[in-house]
């Protein structure tokens, strides 16, 4: 066999495959195996953190489809998570529905809400759209607190443990696999959507809306579709969240959370699925790192003892995001792409 020095494709089908080299397939295989054996390697807390990463990833991918790909900024993403989470909980607790009903239903109800928000937002752009979606988020929060009969108001709601065909997943380790499968499906679906007709239309709407329309893209339809799709992802993430936490409360879905999701896609890389994953993991994990770092400093310098609190964590977090915006506007994804090019050309520098 001849040594393949580059990727040679003989059909267009080969050319558009996601994993088109032996190496990328091998790495992906290793990565999946690694994810499956993770619970055996780490402790429960680590698995719990990965669970949170999965939820954040699905939510961030959804927001990136809307904000990164279609260019429609949203400050109400957490509200769609809330709609998904409450829908899932009500169906599961009240009607005893299994997970394969609650997860898609949470997504679909959130998507319906997304369409309702998307239609009046069609004519809004930039800051105005941010304001409109933000007010939607505040409205949802208010409704969740006021509608005590349905949502439990300030007390929140309890989600039963997820039952996968008779198997009750009541530990972080067992629910981990459940979340992993949903997350994988959602990521692959997003990846496929953005490389086909709908995804191209989304990017076209973002880059040049007038040219997109002149080329035959129905602007109204695609903007609403982006809202619906993004909210579907948020809704699914919401149901996942409810299953992991077991308890949901209006305070889990505030505007601050929406801003956090926005931070995820900015840090990760706007308009990139991989970037959303990086960003979600980064934002979930970094506060832990800051905490560990603070503890190390406290131990090393006695004068610093007792100075650390959560406020400091938030401040450090904000600083990190600022630094990212200044030094790496393309986000973690562009760092990754540069590394990849470096490896590809190794041992040459170009």
């Amino acid at each position, binding site marked *: 066999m001849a040594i393949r020095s580059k990727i040679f494709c003989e059909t267009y089908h080969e050319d558009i495959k996601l994993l088109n080299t032996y190496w990328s397939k091998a790495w992906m295989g290793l990565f999946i195996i690694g994810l499956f054996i993770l619970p055996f390697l780490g402790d429960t807390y680590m698995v719990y953190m990965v669970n949170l990463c999965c939820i954040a990833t699905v939510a961030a991918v959804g927001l990136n489809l809307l904000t990164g790909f279609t260019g429609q900024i949203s400050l109400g993403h957490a509200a769609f998570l809330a709609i998904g989470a409450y829908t899932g909980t009500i169906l599961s607790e009240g009607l005893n529905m299994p997970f394969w009903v609650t997860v898609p239903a949470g997504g679909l109800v959130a998507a319906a809400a997304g369409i309702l928000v998307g239609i009046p937002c069609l004519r809004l752009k930039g800051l105005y759209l941010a304001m409109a979606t933000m007010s939607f988020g505040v409205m949802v929060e208010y409704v969740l607190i006021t509608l005590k009969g349905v949502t439990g108001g300030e007390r929140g709601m309890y989600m039963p443990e997820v039952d996968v065909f008779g198997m009750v997943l009541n530990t972080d380790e067992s629910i981990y696999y459940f979340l992993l499968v949903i997350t994988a499906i959602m990521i692959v*679906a997003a990846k496929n959507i953005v490389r086909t007709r*709908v995804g*191209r239309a989304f990017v076209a709407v973002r*880059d040049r809306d007038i*040219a997109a*329309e*002149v080329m035959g893209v129905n602007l109204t339809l695609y903007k609403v579709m982006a809202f619906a799709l993004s909210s579907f992802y948020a809704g699914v993430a919401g149901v996942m969240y409810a299953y992991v936490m077991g308890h949901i409360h209006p305070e889990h879905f505030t505007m601050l959370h929406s801003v956090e999701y926005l931070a995820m896609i900015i840090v990760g890389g706007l308009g990139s699925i991989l970037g959303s994953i990086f960003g979600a993991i980064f934002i979930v994990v970094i506060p832990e790192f800051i905490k560990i770092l603070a503890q190390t400093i406290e131990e090393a310098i006695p004068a610093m003892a007792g100075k650390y609190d959560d406020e400091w964590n938030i401040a450090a977090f904000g600083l990190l995001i600022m630094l990212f915006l200044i030094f790496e506007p393309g986000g973690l994804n562009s760092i990754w792409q540069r590394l990849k090019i470096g490896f590809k050309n190794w041992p040459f520098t170009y």
Partner: protein
Amino acid sequence: MAQLEIQDLTLNFGGITALSGVAFNVQQGDIHALIGPNGAGKTSLFNVISGIYRPSQGQAVFEGNILNKTSPHRIAAMGVARTFQNIELFQHMSVIDNLLLGRHLHMGTGILSGAMFYGKALREEVRNRLRVEEIIDFLEIEKVRKKPVGSLPYGVQKRVEIGRALANDPRILLLDEPVAGMNVEETEDIARFVLDVKEELGITILMVEHDMGVVMDIADRVTVLDFGILIADGTPSQVQANPKVIEAYLGEGDEEQWNVN
């Protein structure tokens, strides 16, 4: 019957009249040039045809369908494609993706089938890619097909934009200043492509252009606008000899000043 009929078109912006009572026909298979000094309303006319502006009066009729009653994406579906004066490509997409977006109307993959990327959606991607590759060959942009459009030089971007419009398989192609800002060689290339589009693909072309050399060489018919009013319409030689056109371009009077050379 003409393929595209502009009938008594008037376009007002507040107090400004961009077009007033413009009427002319574009025949099937012609290269029809639209010329006139800056601010004559050429691009405004294009925007009316492609549905971005609504005229105050009159209409544009393409193959029997009234264009300006409907939205731009429906007009695209009728077989009208265009390029823009200032390149309006999707900067962050590759050349292939830009052209595939041009195939938007010829594809049917929705969110669900796209998410699976299997069967019909996959076949559709491959089939349309074939057509896109034909256009890439036609415009000789093979080398840059996977590059993001924003990183390409101006002349190539102009060519990609023609490609994106062609990907729509239009029956009429509106070109807004296809050779603006190009050197002689690039201009000749584009002129050759425009002739090929007409002869090989049989697509009618309506073209706004300031380069009189190109217009007089390749156009079958020329329409001249000045301050939103149609002042001449005919073959290139007729238009060239028209005193109103000369006046519009060179200004009135002082013959002596022009006779110096």
